[in-house]
Structure formats: structure tokens, C-alpha cells
């Protein structure tokens, strides 16, 4: 193992601790709250023997899981990646971090991965907790759904963070704009500019389709998977290029 890689491995510990105690403190509280409210919501049914193995029980537990994840995953990803680069820039932390022998893109790539691991672990824990109380849930599917959401939404957020100081607000605007555009687009005439616009917007519809499939333990369409991975990966790559090329002091 080279000196550089062992240093990175040693520093990942700090990145993970930051992720847990700083970035994901609020998502952790949200996760705990969602799990507790789920328990409270399904408590009346829990007292009926055999309910969770009945078709109604299976349907209810799947609905509860989906609702909890619908709220948790976007919030966790947004809170986990918001200001990742821009806060270091605005608060001046870069002066300490990057006077050390550290490649800036590698630092943020490792931080992004650490946040992804923590987000996925939290989502999987939530699924496991709901599954423990109701009926076993597709923990791996939930973890995959969270990871893919992180790649897409987290990639976009870190790109905006590398370029501007208003990353959180921009991502929300783009995300909502995308959802609205996809709703309106089918009603537009052929040749309308919106048909072209939705092609370059984040493939949220593919992510939604994959999430549905994973929550139901169904296989996902590979072209959906590649589209989301390519879009999120391209955003992350552009973000890392931006932190390499753009001045840190601005």
C-alpha cells in the first residue's frame, strides 16, 4: 500500500465521523422519527395474530416502507450533500485542508463516497427496523434505491456546490422543475421545446421506476439503471473537474 493510499484510508475514518455527526445528524433524527411514527401507525394491526403474513399485512407494510422512504431518501441525500464544496469555500476551511498535500478532487470524491455510505446505511437500517416490526422488507432493494438516488441527486448537488454557493436551492428548483416538466411534457405538441428540455433534465422518472421495482423486489430495467448512473456520474465528474480547475478562493 502506498503512503498516499494509506493516508486516504486513515482520513476516510474522519470523513465518516464528520458524515455521521455533522451531515447526517438531522437525517438520523428524521429517520428515527419516521420509524417511530410508522410503528405508531401500524400498532393497531400488530396486535392481530398473523396479520403481517396476511395479504393485507404485506400490502400495508410495503406501503409504510414506501412512504417512509419517499420522505427520507430525498431529504437525506439533499442534507448529506448540500454545501459539500461551497461551505468549505465560503467558511474558508479550504485554507487548512488544501495547504496539505491533498488533491482537491480526490478529497471531495472520498467525502462524497463517505456520505453515500452513511445515507445508504441509514436507509437500510430504517428498512430493517420497519421489517422487524412488521414483516421482512427488501433491505437490499432499499439500499440500492437510496444509493441510486444519491448518485443522481447527490451528483447534481455536488456539481452545483462546486460551481455556486446556492447549491441546495438550485437543486430543489431543478428537481421540482424536472417533475413539473415531465408532467406537462406529454400534453405538448410535437416539436415543442419542452420535449428537448426534458431529455437533458435529470432522469427522475427512471429513478422512480427503479425505486418501485426495488421496493417490490422486482428486477429493474438496465437502460434505466445506466441512464441514472451515467447522469449522476457525469455530474460528479464535472464537479470534480470544477474543483480542480476553478479557484478555491472566490
Amino acid at each position, binding site marked *: 500500500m502506498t503512503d*498516499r493510499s494509506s*493516508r486516504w484510508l486513515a*482520513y476516510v475514518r*474522519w470523513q465518516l465521523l464528520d458524515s455521521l455527526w*455533522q451531515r447526517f445528524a438531522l437525517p438520523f433524527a428524521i429517520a428515527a422519527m419516521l420509524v417511530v411514527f410508522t410503528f405508531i401507525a401500524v400498532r393497531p394491526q400488530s396486535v392481530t395474530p398473523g396479520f403481517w403474513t396476511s395479504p393485507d399485512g404485506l400490502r400495508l407494510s410495503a406501503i409504510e416502507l414506501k412512504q417512509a422512504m419517499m420522505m427520507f431518501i430525498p431529504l437525506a441525500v439533499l442534507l448529506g450533500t448540500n454545501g459539500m464544496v461551497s461551505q468549505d469555500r465560503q467558511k474558508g*476551511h479550504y*485554507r*487548512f485542508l488544501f*495547504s496539505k498535500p491533498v488533491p482537491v478532487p480526490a478529497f471531495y470524491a472520498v467525502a462524497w463516497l463517505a456520505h453515500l455510505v452513511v445515507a445508504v446505511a441509514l436507509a437500510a437500517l430504517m428498512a430493517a427496523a420497519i421489517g422487524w416490526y412488521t414483516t421482512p422488507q427488501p433491505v437490499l432493494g432499499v439500499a440500492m434505491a437510496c444509493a441510486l438516488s444519491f448518485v443522481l441527486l447527490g451528483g447534481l448537488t455536488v456539481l452545483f456546490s462546486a460551481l455556486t454557493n446556492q447549491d441546495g436551492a438550485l437543486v430543489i428548483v431543478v428537481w421540482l422543475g424536472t417533475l413539473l416538466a415531465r408532467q406537462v411534457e406529454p400534453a405538448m405538441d410535437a416539436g415543442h421545446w419542452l420535449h428537448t428540455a426534458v431529455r437533458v433534465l435529470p432522469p427522475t422518472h427512471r429513478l422512480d421506476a427503479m425505486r418501485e421495482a426495488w421496493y417490490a423486489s422486482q428486477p429493474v430495467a438496465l437502460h434505466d439503471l445506466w441512464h441514472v448512473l451515467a447522469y449522476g456520474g457525469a455530474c460528479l465528474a464535472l464537479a470534480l473537474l470544477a474543483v480542480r480547475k476553478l479557484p478555491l478562493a472566490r
Partner: protein
Amino acid sequence: MIAFRGVGRTYHPLLGKRVRAVDDFSLEVAAGEVVGIAGPNGAGKTTLIAMMLGFLAPSDGAVRLDGQAPRAYVERHGVGYLPELMALPPFWRVEGALRRLGTLAGVPAAGLEAAVNDAIERVGLGEHRRKSIKALSKGTFQRLGLAQALLRDSRVLVFDEPTHGLDPVWSSRFRDLVDGLRRPDRTIFIASHNLDELERLCHRVAIIDHGRLQRIVSISGAGQAATAWLIRVADGDSRLAAHFASCERLADGAWLVRAANNDALNAGLAAAITAGARVTAVVPHESSLEHQFREAVRP
């Protein structure tokens, strides 16, 4: 070791006028040198340092560290840097901050504990090591900044307003610390408003104003630093005046005496004392650096 060649930097704000922060700045700093940079607020000192560390690209000219582009050098070797604007996450603890920055600086895991303890010892942070950063006073936080700059055995050390917020005891200890850091293969770059500090520590001081290099002052030694002194005598005023070519009585009764150097001062004082003057105090009034600074930087 450090070369600024015709460096300029212009800021282009989205709204408002563009600002030329640094203009045609050239300076070569050799290994083993301690070089200071002095200038009034907004003169361009911090912009120069940002370009030296690759945080900011010059609009014109080039900066080189050991022949390499700044970012390439820093990413390969690291620089011990104490920024003027101290900012670390407030929930980090002193010891933890030094451990993580030491790890990032490439201090091997086996030597990290010793490096952190040594840095804590050097800047007297022992009693604060378990405190969170938000609980530190300005001066203690400044010492933490100094400690993290010393974690790695860097060949380039950059201190931006290093004694800002430090009490007189630690300001004095900082000078001792820098003296201990001098090494033939190490370059130390200090930006400061404190001319006395620069005069005591540096081989040369570059004076900048409005982003332009005004002059470079070589500091030939502490003994030749001052060129004017305030002298008080109990009696024998006339005898004092007789032995100095430039001697002016001030309103508070002290004499402002100018002499070419320390030797000329001593010769004049010896003659005056022999003639019966009773000297009660001799205080440097204005150092040569201060004098040159006043000349170079005009409002």
C-alpha cells in the same frame, strides 16, 4: 524556492468595478530565507499568498514553488500555512483537529501521536487539547492554527498575520519559534502589519501598497535596525545636544536623536556622558524598516 514573476490579479465582481488587487509583482525568495511582506490593509498581501498556494490563479505572470506550479507543489509536498482568516468547524476538538489535519498532511500513523503532542507542546495548547474549537479564545485559536502549520516538516512555511490576537508573551514566543524553524533548505514567508516583528525575524521585507511592490528592504541585523531614538537625560541637556548632529527637543522633554547606526549612537552617548550628561532612558523611536515603510506607503 518561491518565485513571483510579473504577477497580477484582477477581481471581476458581478456587480461593481473590477479591482486590481496585485499588479506586476516580482520577487524571488531563496531556500533558507525568511522573507516578510508588509503593507497597509488591502495592499494585496493575502491575495499574493492565495496565489502562492494555488488557491487563486494569477491574471498575469506566474508563481512558482521550487519550479512547479503552486497547486502541483502543494499537492505533492504540502505547505505549513497559518491563514489570517482562521476557520475550522467549531465542533472539532483541538486534539482531534490536529490528528485529522496531521493525517491529511501525511504524517505517518506511527508518528502521528508524537507529532500532535509535539505541536501542542510547542504552542502551549496542553490545557486546551480536549476543548472544542468554539470554546477557544482568539489567541488560543491562533495558536492552534500555528500548531497545525507545524505538524509536517514542510520546506515552505507561510504565516499570514501570525501574531494577530496573540498576547505579548506568545508574540514573543512566536519569534523564538520562528528562530527555531530556520533551516538552510526551508523558506519562511511572513505577512504582517507588525513591522517590529518582521524586522526581528526576516532577512528581507517586501513592502507593497495598492498591489504593487514598492521596495524590498534588507534587514542587516538587529543592531542596525533603528535610526532614531528617544533619549531622556536627568541633567546636561546641552551636552547631549552637542554630541549629536541631529538632536531635537520634544514637547515632553525627551530628545529625538538621529544617528546613522548603533555605533554612532553609542559614540555620541559615551561622549555626552563623559561630558557630564546623566542619561536615564534610551528608546528606539523609529526603525529603518518603519522609516522605509513610511516613505514607501503614502496615504
